[in-house]
Each structure stands twice: as C-alpha cells, then as structure tokens.
C-alpha cells in the first residue's frame, strides 16, 4: 500500500513513447513517435541516400518498429534505437541494389592547411555530399544531437573509429569548401 502511494507520488510518468508502445502496443504511442522522430529520421536517411529511398526506408522502419517492439528495452535511447533500425534497413537495401557503400572508409583528402571559406548553402551541401558515407553519417548524427555513445550504438562501431570519422569529415569538409572558394 505504502509502496503504491510512494510510486503514485514520486515516480515520474514514462515519457518514452517507444517504451509505452512496446509495453502496450497502443497505436497512439506509435503516432506520437512518428510525429516526434519522423522528420529527423527522414533527414538522416535523405542525407545518406536519396528522397525516394529515404521515404521507402522510413516506411519500412516504422513497420519494423511494429514488428520488433518486443525487443525494445526502455533503458535505451529510443531515437538511437530507431536510427539503428533505419540504418540497418538502408544498408540492407543498398546490398539488395548492389550499391557499393564503403563502411570502413576513413579517407582524408589531403594533409594541407585549413583554407578559409565563405559559407554558401549550395557549396556547403555539395561538399557535405562529397564526403564518404560513414564520414557524412558521423557528422549528420552528431548534428542530430546524438552523443558519441549513441553514434557508436547506431553505427555499431567503436568510439575511436567514430572520433576519427568526425575529425576526417571536418577536415575534408573544410578543404572542399576552401578549394571551392579559391576556385
């Protein structure tokens, strides 16, 4: 009795919609999840592929959530869990389409000095898209607000690899932008 009162008074309500959905299967929680993370997920996927594939993988991800909700552990970061599902689906799709994706690439264009540049949306976007899959992914996930641990969990890599990818991605981006500016 006392425990129930304590729980009622002090326990925070569970704000993890994914955990609620996993527990109850209630579609209202799933709708909330789509509203909450749908755009972030789509943006990650469209940055790593194209519009049509991103839409398709988004759809597949939500179907996967319905299918695999029992596997969700509410101690996880729900957004990271969703992104990991989506990433796996995207890579599976690339493999089906026999598209070559270098998942171990840590290419540094050159060791030259950082060049100064003026920000321009088109140029910046072009430079971003010129990065390798994994470097662009690391930057995108970082900008999405994920911690290093989250990125490690999503990409199933180790922390040092992610740090290297981030460092190289920034250097490559700066170099690309400087080169573009100079040109």
């Amino acid at each position: 009795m006392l425990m129930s009162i304590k729980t009622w008074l002090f326990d925070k309500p569970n704000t993890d919609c994914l955990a609620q959905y996993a527990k109850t299967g209630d579609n209202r929680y799933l709708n909330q999840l789509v509203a909450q993370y749908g755009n972030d997920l789509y943006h990650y996927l469209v940055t790593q592929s194209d519009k049509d594939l991103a839409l398709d993988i988004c759809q597949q991800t939500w179907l996967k959530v319905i299918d695999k909700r029992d596997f969700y552990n509410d101690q996880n970061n729900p957004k990271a869990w969703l992104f990991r599902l989506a990433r796996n689906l995207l890579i599976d799709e690339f493999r089906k389409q026999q598209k070559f994706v270098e998942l171990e690439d840590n290419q540094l264009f050159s060791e030259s000095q950082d060049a100064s540049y003026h920000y321009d949306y088109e140029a910046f976007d072009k430079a971003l898209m010129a990065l390798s899959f994994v470097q662009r992914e690391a930057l995108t996930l970082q900008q999405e607000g994920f911690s290093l641990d989250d990125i490690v969990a999503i990409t199933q890599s180790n922390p040092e690899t992610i740090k290297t990818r981030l460092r190289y991605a920034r250097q490559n981006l700066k170099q690309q932008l400087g080169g573009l500016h100079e040109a």
Partner: protein
Amino acid sequence: MKRNDEQLDTDLKAHFQKRKAEHSLSSDELSHMQKPQSATPRPQRFLGLQMTGVFAALAILGFVMLQYNNRELTDVYAVDLSNYQWLEVHELDAKGSYVSNLKQQKQNLDANYQQALANHQARTSFTGRLVSVDNDWYIADCEQNVIVQIKQSLLEELQKHGTLDTHIHQGDLLALDQNKQGQIIALKQLTHEAKNCEA
C-alpha cells in the same frame, strides 16, 4: 585554426537546420507514415501467407496431376512381360539368318509344374507299359502323356519289400501303386489277358 573550427561548427549547425527544413516530410507523408499502424500490417502478412498457401496448394495439385498423368502413360505403354503367356522372339542371328523363338513364360511353366505335381501326388494308381529298360525302367502311361523313370535304387528297394513282381519284361503292361505322397510303393505285372491299355 581555432577560428576556422568554430566557424565550421557554426556553419554546420546552421546548414543542418536549413537542410532539415528543406528536406522534411509533408503532413501528407507524415500521416502516410502513420497509416501502417491503423492498417496494421499483420493482416497484410496474413494475406501474404494466405496467398502463399494458395500457390503452394496449386503447386502440389499440379504435381499430383502430373504424376497421375505420367502413371497413366506408364500403365498404357509400359511392357510387363509377365502379363503375356507367350513371347515370340524374332531376330537375325550372328550369321544374318532369321530366327524366331517362342518362349513360354516361366511363371506359366511354374504354374503347370505345380499342377502336374499336385496331380502326381494325388494319384494313387498308374497304369502303363514298360517301354525301355537299361539300368532304370521307363514306363509310359496309356495316354502317352507321361513317362515314368524308375531308378535302380527304387527297384532294389521294392524288390527287397517284395512289392516288385518278378519276370517283368519290356513291353509288359504294369500297374504302379502309389501312396498319398505319390511315392511308388508297388509295381505289378497285369494279367496276360490285359495286353492293351484299354483293357
């Protein structure tokens, strides 16, 4: 360098915000994303399973029909030699001569043999003429269908038991007594009056 890094951080943040605003799902697309839940994909999967089941059933039915048709063809055209009583064989031999043979199937011969053996064992008396004598005696029945060869060993045995008439000569008409197993137990000369089988 540090200034460049700070600038890049700022630009990255701004760029991703703009980019996300540019690449976002419309309200229609978002509601479409939410449709799978209301439509619940499980029935779709169930429908898929049903379709798979239907195709599997059709495949099995097709396979069974194919097997049935094949069996009919086999029944009609396959040759089973045991179904025929006689087999005629026509061929050219090594010298190129035409040779034809008529073969009676073994199973028919076996059946005839069994019947003959049964008749032989069922018979308790036999009348015939001593047609040849060497070490063994050869007695032909009156219908000229059966010839009985009696080996020397049996003749000696019959003589020992006193069931073999003495003074039997080639051409004499003889009566053979047999037990229920068809074994000859006595061999007697018929009377001199009975010179013919008809008697």
